[in-house]
């Protein structure tokens, strides 16, 4: 069983839509949860991270963690064509801060 599962998409939405991206995980010990954005032919860049449960908001982006369901989400409000990218979730190994478990990424296309 994979540590992290993520729907690969692709997800296609019109500009201005609210986007919901999700990941599930199997290890209840995970505490740090990250979302990366990766544009084509680029490396991933960190969007947001959260520690433990709850919500975190940064501009149009909201990250949500539900530890009881082992489920994390990233919401994008008022989506823009520039948000078109692959979004990767990741979790840090609680016993080895050098080790991260990544989802396979969800490809998002925001149509103008």
């Amino acid at each position, binding site marked *: 069983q*994979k540590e*992290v599962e*993520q729907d*690969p998409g692709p997800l296609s939405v019109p500009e201005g839509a609210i986007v919901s991206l999700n990941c599930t995980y199997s290890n209840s010990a995970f505490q*740090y949860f990250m979302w*990366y954005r990766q544009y084509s*032919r*680029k*490396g*991933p*860049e*960190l969007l947001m*991270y959260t*520690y433990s449960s709850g919500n975190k908001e940064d501009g149009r982006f909201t990250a949500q963690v539900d530890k009881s369901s082992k489920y994390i989400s990233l919401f994008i409000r008022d989506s823009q064509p520039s948000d078109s990218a692959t979004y*990767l979730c*990741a979790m*840090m190994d609680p016993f080895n*801060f*050098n*080790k*991260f*478990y*990544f*989802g*396979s*990424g969800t490809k998002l296309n925001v149509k103008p």
Partner: protein
Amino acid sequence: EADIYQTPRYLVIGTGKKITLECSQTMGHDKMYWYQQDPGMELHLIHYSYGVNSTEKGDLSSESTVSRIRTEHFPLTLESARPSHTSQYLCASSPGSTGEGSYNEQFFGPGTRLTVL
């Protein structure tokens, strides 16, 4: 934008060749990492380093080797490339955990796309 660089960006080589993928960062980070990324697949850690003269293997079995002679430089070498090595290779660095409960943010380079014929 993160100051981490990878060269070459694209490489096409024949089977059996020895190659070195370069990675440099100017942020003074102690920790550096190499990941392999295939389309539609998760990133797999192949090597990491805590600092100068420290290297560790990651989860993915790899025929590559790394060295860390200088803080800013973390090259990855394939002694004899094979078609199964065809992939995207991503280098990353991080300042490392600053204490209990802190987060170890990774900064990624743009990647090297390797094709072995």
